[in-house]
């Protein structure tokens, strides 16, 4: 069970060894006398990367508090992108955009996911409420993480572009990328949850998820164009 306290632990710690990883091999320096020598690392040959904050953010486990914490963190990260978009006008635009960008992610989760759960349940898809909520939180977290990562680039374009159209275009591209990657995470998590279902149920679930994806794109776009002045809203 992943709790918020363990979440905070991972965030606070510096180099956290992966408990599931095999023991680290001794220094590979002697074995790499030539440039073509293969890298010495874990048993499967892949480098061992220590757990990161991002991995914890995109984790699926945990109870209600952990899920809520991840969703809240994703929302906050998405707001950073909003701040970047608001930098063109400054002042109140900071707040407007910071509220508007995460609103679409939250709305898709709050409005769309219950409907998706109901439809999938009608077809007896093996999806629990907790799993659906975890998928939603993961989607929000993923979208927020990508949007926050793109925020400096968006700020650069939004502030330094002479034309408002160019600023709007670049801001919209970032929104689309963040939103789509968040949606991808949400849908892929749901698909993982439905792997145990029979083939007929999986087929129906796939169709339902396609419909949900379309709904999410349209709803997100509607909200962003309504709330974000940079892309023509408010």
């Amino acid at each position, binding site marked *: 069970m992943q709790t918020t306290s363990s979440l905070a632990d991972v965030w606070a710690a510096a180099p956290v060894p992966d408990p599931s990883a095999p023991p680290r091999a001794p220094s590979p*320096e002697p074995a790499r006398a030539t440039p073509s020598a293969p890298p010495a690392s874990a048993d499967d040959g892949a480098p061992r990367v220590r757990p*990161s904050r*991002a991995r914890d*953010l995109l984790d699926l486990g945990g109870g209600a508090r952990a899920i809520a914490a991840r969703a809240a963190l994703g929302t906050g990260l998405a707001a950073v992108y909003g701040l970047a978009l608001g930098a063109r006008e400054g002042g109140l635009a900071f707040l407007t955009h910071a509220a508007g960008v995460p609103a679409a992610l939250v709305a898709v989760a709050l409005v769309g996911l219950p409907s998706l759960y109901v439809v999938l349940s009608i077809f007896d898809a093996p999806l629990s409420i907790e799993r659906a909520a975890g998928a939603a939180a993961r989607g929000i977290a993923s979208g927020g993480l990508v949007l926050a*990562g793109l*925020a400096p*680039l968006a700020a650069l374009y939004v502030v330094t*572009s002479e034309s408002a159209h160019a600023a709007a275009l670049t801001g919209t591209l970032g929104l689309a990328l963040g939103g789509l990657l968040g949606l991808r995470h949400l849908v892929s998590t749901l698909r993982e949850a439905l792997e145990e279902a029979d083939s007929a149920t999986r087929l129906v679930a796939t169709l339902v998820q396609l419909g949900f994806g379309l709904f999410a794109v349209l709803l997100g776009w509607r909200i962003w164009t309504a709330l974000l002045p940079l892309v023509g809203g408010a």
Partner: protein
Amino acid sequence: MTSPEANPVALLLRDPREVARRCLEEEKLRPLVLSSLAAVALGAAVFGAVVGSFRGDEQILFAAVKVPLALLGALVICVPAFHAIAASLGRPWPLRTVVALTIASAGRAALVLFAAAPVLWLAFDFGLGYHAAALAATGAYGLAGVAALGVLVRALGRGKHALTTAAAFVAVFLAAGGQTGWILRPYLVRPQTSDVPFLRDVEGGFAGALYQASRSSVGIYDRAAQHRDWSADPYGDPSRDRRPSYEPSYEPSYEPSYEPSYDPSHRRSREPMQQPYGAVDDEAPWTEPHPSRGRR
């Protein structure tokens, strides 16, 4: 010969796989990152100085300062995006790893720029024309980008979404590098330009320049139409009459007869080149407009 293991610069050049592994496992990062930063500062500065030498004088110093600044600025903007995109596509690397990978990749790219600088300088000295010079410098930058990608691709490995992640990295770097480069332009300046500012005023943007360049490539010169007083132009409005005379041309008919063997856009010693109105294909993101256009 110094082994790549002992020399981080040699490691950057010879063994990108090992560089990627070190970054991922956060092993001996300090010498690697410091060497990469030094390579960025030196390699990009030398390359910038050579690009600035196309005009000479203070532009050599300006470009030598601005090219490393543009590169480092782009890296700063790229790191959070790389971190988020990699995590979202199945590689939740620590931020420290992403920073090290990005700097090491840039260091490798800067070493390639350093290697390309003498070739470019020699080409300038042999009288390479303005547009050919811009193309050659762009080509060198492209080669450097490929070298940098070598480190990133090896870090991504062969797992799921590796290609998508690499493509996203390239797109993000092009967007960030293009705009930071645009802000800090000009780099390549025509020799006959009398007064060169350290920075130009904000005009348009990188995305707009790409759009305009794509239209110019098919003979549509939007900005020429905007900036010209067509009522006083003996050739008339090009939107109604795109005759061949609006095409940028450096044919011998424009060359002064006393220096027939050189490209007229290169040598400082000659008179300003006679260009037809509307010849604005010098609007590449890093270039300076021709003085005959009178925009500064």
